[in-house]
């Protein structure tokens, strides 16, 4: 394989689980052998979807001020934002916080489930590309920091109670990190290649190798 930063050619060696190989020239991470990467990505992907639904529909925050009482979920918050004069921002929030994370989790599940039994589904290659491309655009953890900062402003104005939706957001943030961070990119692509090869010639059993 070649380093993604400096293009140095390396032979891929089998490393032990949990170990990481670094580039000899520039010191960047080349690859990490993650234990049970697909199982974990699948499990955390499913958890993430549940948390995402929880964040969308469960009460996120309750505000009490001067007799008025407001309970809202994150999904409603985006709708309120649209109605109160911030349509562009509300679309941006919806894309970065709900749509892209959902796409990422969905593509992870779509990839991991069949690959766990060595099967190939249609369109796995574009789905993997999508999953990798979304990496920098999923901003749940940035939104979490934003929520903390705005809570500090809000506590001055009203009594705040955090609901299950808020805790779901934290769960979503953690499971996204675990699901995407646990993926072993080399293994994923090797397994896809093996699964497709097996589909074309069903009688040949191919062991997943590290050569590429």
């Amino acid at each position, binding site marked *: *394989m*070649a380093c*993604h*930063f*400096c*293009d*140095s*050619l*390396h032979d891929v060696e089998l490393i032990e689980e949990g170990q990481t190989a670094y580039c*000899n*020239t*520039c*010191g*960047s991470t080349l690859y990490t052998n993650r234990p049970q990467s697909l199982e974990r990505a699948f499990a955390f992907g499913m958890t993430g979807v549940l948390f995402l639904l929880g964040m969308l529909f469960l009460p996120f*925050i309750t*505000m009490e*001020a*001067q007799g*008025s009482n*407001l309970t*809202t979920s994150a999904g409603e*918050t*985006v709708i*309120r*934002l649209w109605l*109160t*004069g*911030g349509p*562009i*921002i*509300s679309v*941006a*929030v919806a894309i*970065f916080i709900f749509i892209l994370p959902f796409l990422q989790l969905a593509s992870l599940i779509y990839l991991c489930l069949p690959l766990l039994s060595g099967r190939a589904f249609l369109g796995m*290659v574009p789905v*993997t*590309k999508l999953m*990798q491309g979304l990496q*920098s*655009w999923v*901003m749940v953890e*940035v*939104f979490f*920091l*934003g*929520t903390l*900062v*705005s809570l*500090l*402003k*809000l506590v*001055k*104005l009203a009594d705040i109670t955090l609901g299950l939706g808020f805790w779901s957001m934290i769960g979503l943030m953690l499971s996204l990190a675990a699901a995407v961070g646990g993926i072993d*990119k*080399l293994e994923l*692509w090797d397994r896809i*290649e093996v699964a497709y090869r097996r589909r074309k010639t069903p009688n040949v059993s191919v062991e997943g190798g590290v050569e*590429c």
Partner: protein
Amino acid sequence: MLASAREKNKVSCHTCGRINPLEEASCLRCQAPLHSRKKNSVQRCLALSLASIIAYIPANVWPIMIVTNLGRTEESTILAGVATFWQMKAYPVAITIFIASVMIPALKLLALGWLCALSAGWIETNPRRANRIFWLTELVGRWSMVDVFVVAILVALVQLGNIMSIAPGTAAVSFGMMVILTMLAALSFEPRIIWDNARQSATHE
């Protein structure tokens, strides 16, 4: 320094990492179009950085939030928001917002300019340092969105009729544009060119 894939007449797929012969047009494994180096990376990176500098100005000059409190309207810019938190003695928050919304974008644009100058060969440095800076630039970019999200949450939640309401200012959108443009600029940058230059000067010596 190890030989690069290109020197060995190979090209590594940007999508799946497979090593292909240099003459292939698309990856033998995933069919993604192959290019040994990203096309026009310096021009694209500079153009996107310039566009984000243009967006950076209104993002800091115009109000990001408009607060109406008992009929009194108050517009606040990003820096004014930092100052408010500082006066509230919420120092960690003030520092976080200052770093995320003012320092990171500015440093990122400086870093991208410096990296472009490096790959154009105008200046020279240890390529390992350039590598670390590029890695950092890619890593921190998204955190600048924090301020946009803060505005989004406050606008959605603080609608207490006549008592108090918050509306998004024009800077919120320009700020978001600026962050997205710097992220795209970082994505279009090609760090391998810096290493190509380093390999070339190593063989000349």
